């Protein structure tokens, strides 16, 4: 078991490095002066160069090799090479160091990003957590019944409704529900209210989940042990909840754990639309104000959470089923 855990951890490292490399290339490949200008649109040339130096954008990109300096100084000459520094004295490895130590840097208003994230996690969770719990409970129960009554009118109509729900764009849900409940029925005071965002989050996500769980349950229902249980005279409800649901736990667990990162990153559109001061709203603000550091941190955080999620699911598989091994 210990060996498995260690190997699984080691397996994550190259992928983590790959994520770092892709996000790094995406954000740091551009001309450093152009990056500086986005941060300080009106600043003179000299201030831009100073900004580049202060933010380490004048360092070599990936490796500090002879002749690999990337920046031209304000006076037009090349930066001297960093001969006395190690080969890892570069933008890439410095940003890795920052990310490992969770030194997330400052946003455009010079506020530490880590601080604003700490403030913004709770509003996001207050919407996403109830939505998530509702979504999982509802979709599992609907899918279970749909699979049990397969090929009946109930099942076929559920299938159609789920495809329909998956085909509606999120902005349409937002505008439609906002109009229906806020203006037409006058039920919910539209803004700063949790009920409507939660409802929309559930509606927009439930279609895909029901379909996924239904396939999982159907697979189990066709297994021999279900037939055996039925011929032994086990009650239908016991078959459904014990045999089918119990044996579907692994795929269900995967999809649950895999959606956990989105609880923290929140829903961008939803938070922007309803003015919820969460992580999604932070991201939206960053997009509007062209704050690349915040976006970079968000991309990194999202991937980090995703990778941790998949690590956790794999480890829990192993606990649940000792036959699982690394292929």
């Amino acid at each position, binding site marked *: 078991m210990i060996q498995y855990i260690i190997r699984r951890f080691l397996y994550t490292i190259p*992928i983590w490095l790959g994520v770092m490399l892709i996000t790094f290339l995406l954000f740091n490949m551009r001309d450093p002066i152009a990056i500086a200008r986005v941060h300080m649109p009106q600043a003179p040339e000299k201030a831009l160069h100073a900004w580049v130096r202060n933010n380490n954008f004048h360092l070599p990109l990936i490796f500090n090799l002879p002749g690999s300096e990337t920046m031209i100084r304000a006076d037009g000459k090349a930066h001297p090479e960093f001969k006395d520094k190690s080969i890892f004295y570069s933008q890439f490895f410095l940003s890795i160091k920052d990310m490992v130590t969770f030194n997330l840097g400052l946003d455009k208003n010079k506020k530490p990003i880590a601080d604003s994230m700490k403030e913004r996690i709770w509003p996001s969770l207050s919407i996403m957590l109830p939505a998530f719990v509702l979504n999982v409970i509802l979709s599992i129960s609907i899918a279970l019944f749909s699979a049990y009554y397969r090929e009946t009118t109930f099942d076929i109509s559920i299938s159609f409704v789920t495809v329909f729900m998956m085909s*509606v*764009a999120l902005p*349409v849900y937002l505008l439609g529900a906002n109009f229906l409940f806020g203006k037409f029925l006058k039920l919910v005071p539209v803004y700063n209210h949790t009920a409507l965002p939660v409802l929309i989050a559930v509606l927009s996500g439930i279609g895909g989940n029901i379909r996924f769980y239904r396939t999982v349950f159907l697979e189990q229902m066709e297994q021999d042990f279900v037939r055996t249980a039925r011929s032994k005279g086990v009650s239908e409800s016991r078959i459904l909840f014990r045999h089918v649901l119990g044996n579907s736990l692994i795929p269900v667990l995967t999809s649950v754990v895999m959606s956990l*990162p989105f609880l923290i990153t929140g829903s961008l559109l939803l938070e*922007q639309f309803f003015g919820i001061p969460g992580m999604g709203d932070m991201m939206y603000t960053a997009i509007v104000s062209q704050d690349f550091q915040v*976006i970079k941190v968000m991309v990194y955080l999202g991937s980090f959470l*995703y990778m941790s999620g998949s690590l956790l699911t794999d480890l829990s598989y192993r606990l649940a089923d000792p036959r699982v091994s690394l292929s």
Partner: protein
Amino acid sequence: MIKNITLIFFALLTIYLFYLFIKTDNGREAFLKLRSKKRVVAAFLVICIYFLVGFLDQISFQIDNKNKTIIDLIFRGVPQERTYSAPFANRVTGIIPGTENEERNLVKGTHILGTDINGYDVFYSVIKGSGTALILSFGTGLISFPIGILLGILAGYFGGWVDDLIQWLYTTISSIPWLLFVIAFLMVFGRGIFWICMAIGLTSWVELARLVRGETMKLKNLDYITAARAQGIPVARILYRHILPNLNYLIIITFTLSASSVILAESVLTFIGIGVEPGTSSWGVMLVEAQKELTRSPIIWWVFVGSSFIGILPLVLSLNIFGDALRDALDPRVKGKDV
């Protein structure tokens, strides 16, 4: 003119590829199975109509020094009104009290979906939106399919370190949350249809590569491939002649399902403000407009209804239904969400 010829060539190529697909064994089987299902036939027809309209909107001519597409020419007779008018209304909306009988409040033509704030016909805008949807679906496919097929075949056929490397690449890309990556990409490179296609194309090949890899691994152990290898046929030829034709169904399934997600993504990205440019005629831009119109009093609902229920919904729904049916007919094993 060159653009028109390229487009027509491209459309003919697409139809020819589809024809080739129907002629293969599993293609004909799927065709026969699906032909009896009314729902699927209807979905297929809807897709054809939307893409045909979108295609006609790309063929343009120089008339009076302006580029006019065929759709523009068809809608030439639809007049521009003064401002909003409801569907089939004979007067514009929001008439100042006391001027009810004035002639200038009358609309000049019939508008089945009304007109927007500038008096443009909403139905016409919805029709124009299908052109953008078509470009997005095919543009994304043009970028992601070559990458996905090539890397998938290489990983599946050669195995070993090639497989490890390609698996590492796509696991890495799929570890970055999709929407976050697309947003970051668009912020760095700028907005617009081209960059949306690039961003989504560069991330969505992963699914196809995964499927192609699995299928190739199965195929390469079949007898006829072994025989071909024993005859000394070059690897490139084996891949092209004997493996690639067997993957056609994966491509067509992935296309329908990825087209639907691209169209949905466009509306979300445009709504955030980093999708297509504001002047473009797309359903996402119309939804952004509709957000403003829904808060007006009296309420202007037809822009919203037009873009979402005449534009996005029928096409995406049909793509989903058709893609699912095709997948069930062709390959019951890949049923499920992870495609």
